[in-house]
């Protein structure tokens, strides 16, 4: 059980020695206090099929190793065997809680490769849906994260409100989760009658709800004790580890692709990039909460200024981009989501690479949890906000 599992310990030690605990001497593996625990892939708090091997001293984490790939579907290989338009729905299956963002990134990347630009109205619709999706993703994150830390109730509140967003998606494109809302060159669907009104109503509806979540958690002593100074990561560390999104911003780096290299219509809206100071779990929580509010701001502006006009650019029926390659990235709810597409002039991408934010952010787990307790591992996995569909692709 504890010690008798020397075999297991050695197996893990063998795979992890250099990676998990480079600074530990090998003989510590035989120390009587060490315990190797396998968290996942079937574990309620690993948000899917993530497997984390924990090396513990009592309850203190000495090192971790993530074992991923349980959800690998070979998205990049599939892309090479599909036409550009056919591959579009596949990207929704990566970060399935933010499918709209995935689609947005892909469509914009291909448009860039084709050297076309979506019409203004399409861009606005894209922004509205992508920001709604950001709120939905953050709500889902908040609910599950709070559940991991032991607060059951916020989950149900966030899911109740996320439902309203999904209803808008469903009315717009017929799907709730994997939406396939956009097409290369713009949008396929015009907004439905009453879209603006519903979105505005949603903004009105959800603003007090966000305050409600905060009322439950922000000032809660136990919540603060569980999240403050837990999983601290500094700004330079984040940059070195390639961590992006709310995690980076919570560490004090004010960087958002929407501001730094604006895409869609983001340059036309006023919004702020919330940043944290300490880079702990609590800051990441606060950053995401204010991000939801900023998203509402963007949505409001976009709905009020929704221009008239076509929603589809002139794109040939058969999409055949010229030979060349492009890298395009957007700010997905998880971080920088990039698409690197190499075209050989045919209808199928020669090579399509997805730069998944969850995958890169997950690397920071080891840095963040060392020296913390098992309970914190759960909190930190939650706070990185990974979606295994995107990590494994």
């Amino acid at each position, binding site marked *: 059980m504890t010690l008798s599992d020397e075999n297991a310990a050695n197996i893990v030690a063998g*795979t992890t020695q*250099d*990676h998990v605990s*480079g600074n530990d001497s090998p003989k510590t593996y035989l120390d009587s206090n060490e315990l190797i625990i396998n968290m996942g892939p079937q574990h309620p708090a690993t948000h899917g099929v993530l497997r984390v091997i924990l090396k513990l001293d009592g309850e203190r984490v000495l090192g971790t190793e993530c074992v*991923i*790939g349980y959800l*690998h579907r*070979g998205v*990049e*290989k599939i892309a*090479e*065997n*599909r*036409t550009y338009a*056919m591959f579009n729905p596949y990207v929704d299956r990566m970060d399935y809680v933010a499918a709209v963002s995935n689609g947005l990134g892909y469509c914009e990347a291909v448009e*860039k*490769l084709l*050297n076309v630009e979506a019409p203004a109205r399409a861009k606005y619709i894209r922004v509205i849906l992508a920001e709604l999706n950001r709120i939905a993703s953050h709500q889902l994150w908040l609910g599950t994260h709070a559940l991991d830390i032991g607060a059951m109730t916020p989950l149900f509140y966030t899911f109740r409100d996320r439902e309203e967003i999904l209803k808008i998606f469903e009315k717009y494109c017929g799907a709730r989760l994997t939406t396939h809302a956009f097409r290369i060159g713009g949008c396929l669907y015009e907004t439905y009658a009453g879209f603006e009104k519903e979105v505005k109503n949603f903004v009105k509806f959800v603003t007090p709800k966000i305050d409600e979540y905060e009322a439950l958690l922000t000032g809660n002593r136990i919540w603060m004790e569980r999240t403050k100074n837990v999983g601290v990561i500094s700004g330079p560390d984040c*940059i*070195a*580890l*390639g*961590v992006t999104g709310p995690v980076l911003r919570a560490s004090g*780096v004010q*960087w958002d692709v929407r501001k*730094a*290299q604006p895409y869609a219509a983001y340059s036309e809206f006023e919004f702020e990039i919330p940043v944290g100071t300490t880079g702990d779990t609590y800051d990441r929580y606060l950053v995401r909460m204010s991000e939801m509010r900023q998203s509402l701001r963007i949505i409001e502006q976009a709905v009020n200024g929704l221009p008239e006009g076509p929603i589809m650019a002139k794109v040939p029926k*058969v999409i*055949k*981009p*010229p*030979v*060349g*390659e*492009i*890298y395009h*990235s957007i700010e997905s709810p998880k971080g*920088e989501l*990039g698409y*690197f597409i*190499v075209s050989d*002039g*045919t*209808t*199928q991408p*020669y*090579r399509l*690479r997805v*730069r998944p934010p969850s*995958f*890169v952010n*997950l*690397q920071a787990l080891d840095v963040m949890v060392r020296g913390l307790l098992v309970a914190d591992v759960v909190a930190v996995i939650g706070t990185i906000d990974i979606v295994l569909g995107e990590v*494994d*692709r």
Partner: protein
Amino acid sequence: MARTMAVNYGSQTMAEEIKPPVLLSSSAQKTGGETSAAKAASGKAATAKNPEGPVPIPWAAPLVEKYRSQYGSGLEAQTYLGQNYVTVDSSLIPNFLRQLRDDEQFDYCVDITAVHYPKREKQFEVIWILYSFARNERLRVKVHIADGASLPSSVSIWSSTNWLEREVFDMFGIQFVGHPNMTRILLPEGWKGHPLRKDYGILQQDQEWVQINLGIESGQ
């Protein structure tokens, strides 16, 4: 995992001469010659001349000048659709990347990936996508290497490249020397072959796996 280990795919897929990636279309033919529009378009594309588009133009910038004077012909800078990339010789790799980080503030390695061109002499193109917070600028560094060649790891330069290099190894079989844990990351340890190579036969693998493990003919 252990079951797939029993299957040996390596021999024919690795050594075989490069075949065009026609996995989808071949399956379409088998199931009754049903040709989609995409298939037809794809067929046409092979014969028709490529559509006109922008072409990469040389990129002139102080950064490029500086390193060209240092490295000479081993470095070629181009820009395509406003995106800059530098193609360098593989011998420059760790030093040039380190210089980019230290001297040019490219402190964030966004991604590492590779592209397989089976017909070229140096089959693989490995690409580092870099970003500089200070300059708000992206840059791609490309290197061409032959099959079986390895590259020095850049984990010591950007720690983010740890898993990214493992993924490149997993998908393309390119070894990064000096990487702390050069093992497969997404695929199970006993997997044969590297799927993102153009000569990787999915259907063959599937048929073989089904035959060996299930004892029936594959329906694919």
